[in-house]
């Protein structure tokens, strides 16, 4: 999907902050992903046009970074850390339980990620880049369920940052 008129304005403001426009690529990809729930080929083509580069260059960069999702739109991205401090605090079981509980839901992506820099609260996960320490597998599933039902408001799927 192309940017909404409002987001296109934001995109132009972001580009203006950099001495060279291509530097705006990562923030523009986040903006598109927050809007659509993924990076569609259309969105990447529009970003290429805004930055004066080829769509394939946008794809080449987007595919390097784990936060960008290019397969289909999602409503929730659940990132479970399984690096060592979380691992020794039961993260393996947390990841398994959450992945299994939401395997059938196309709108939810459950992924295993590297250390999220919150190891004092291990095991931790993020829902749309919001941090949550979790007590164990059941608590983790219950938490994601609250987001799924809409009892908790989620950020955008790219973190929903307030870019000036």
């Amino acid at each position, binding site marked *: 999907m192309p940017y909404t008129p409002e987001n296109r304005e934001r995109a132009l403001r972001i580009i203006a902050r950099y001495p060279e426009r291509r530097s705006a690529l990562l923030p523009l990809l*986040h903006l598109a992903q927050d809007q659509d729930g993924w990076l569609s080929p259309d969105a990447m083509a529009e970003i290429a046009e805004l930055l004066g580069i080829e769509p394939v260059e946008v794809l080449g960069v987007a595919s390097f970074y784990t936060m960008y999702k290019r397969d289909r739109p999602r409503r929730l991205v659940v990132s479970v850390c399984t690096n060592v401090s979380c691992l020794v605090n039961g993260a393996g079981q947390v990841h398994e339980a959450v992945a299994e509980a939401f395997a059938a839901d196309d709108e939810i992506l459950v992924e295993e990620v590297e250390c999220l820099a919150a*190891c004092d609260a291990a095991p931790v996960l993020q829902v749309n880049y919001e941090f949550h320490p979790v007590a164990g597998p059941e608590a983790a599933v219950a938490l994601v369920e609250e987001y799924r039902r809409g009892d908790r408001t989620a950020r955008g799927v790219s973190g929903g940052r307030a870019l000036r």
Partner: protein
Amino acid sequence: MSVTETRIVTRRLREHPDAHTLERYLATGGYEALRRALQMTPDAVRDEQVTASGLRGRGGAGFGTGQKWSFLPAGVHPRYLVVNGDEGEPCTFKDHMLIEGDPHQIVEGAAIAAYAIGAHHAFCYVRGEFALGIERLERAVAEAYDAGFLGRDVCGSGYDLEMVVHPGAGAYVAGDETGLLSSLEGGRAMPRIKPPFPAVQGLYAAPTVVNNVETVATLPHIILMGGDAYARLGVGRSTGTRIFSVSGHVRRPGNYEVELGITFRDLIEGLAGGVRDGKRMKFFIPGGASSPWLLPDHLDEPLDMDHVTQNLRTMLGSGAVMVFDEDTDPALVAWRLARFFAHESCGKCTPCREGSDWLEKVLFRIAHGRGRPEDLDLMLSFGQTIVPDLDRTPFNQTTICALGPSTMSPVVSLDRWFRDEILERCGADRRRIPVVPA
């Protein structure tokens, strides 16, 4: 004698839950250091304050901050300051806390650094997963503009400074300073060969200084207390305080800001409460996933960057101390860290790209009961294509960035401290389970 923290950089956020707001920042002496710095010449800030303080980078390599600034070629403009807030080194969580908890301190420190090096454009590259941190730092930057601490004519001094908060998108290698610059230019975060060093050809091929978040957050305090006074804290060439992130099997995991020179025991037992559940420690990792491991025998060694490198064959690195109890399988930890490195290798150098994958595969089979007796030596042998001399500290390398040699730290640690255990286990398992490639 009980150990206490020495809170300088973490004091405000520990005392005030609203330390991230401009009101609280100003009410606790915020931006006074910037005002004072602007009354000095840039060279005086660099030489008489920062170089005199002995401050060394808190990002991992521990390079002298004032010295790094002095490498910028005179008279070449534009030039840039880049603050490294990518914090991806496993089990390091101090910059995350500083960004969320006290963002104005980073803005003020970055402004001081930019002034000292003569830059008019500064970028704060923040790890993309820190959504709240990015939001808070962006707000802090916006407030600083409104209050006249950024933008045209900062504090009426005639100095202009633009500051941009830039989100990453999930790539550990973007934390390497040259990988970060590639990423900030809108590319894949692939590191670049040095030389040229960023000080000569960095962002947009212009002279650039890259400094860690904690490094710049320390600068306002150096200005306020004076470089000489700061240098009196700490031990030897490890001056001042550092924030250590302690995690794993400890009673009180968390960030602890301490004067350098206290011992690992003070930190792990005194502050973090020691190993929990009445168990004993099996080993600990002293400076992030990239650093070789240590044993309980080393607990009385001091937190002194040079001592740890020269005498303990490891490093204080990013200040991440991971503690593992007696029931931990060291092969499992080694495999998980190897998987991290294999996943994060950018693929530019053959030894790192191929080697990290093979290490992961071999460690997987050891950790999962399918190891062969020759496996440890196999890894040490092909590992020499990444690190030609495994006895040297820090490791030398055949690769562009330091991620390559880091992949060998878990392996070298297994060999140093757990060789018999691993060999025994591989031998026994081999008799029991047929070998299939993992």
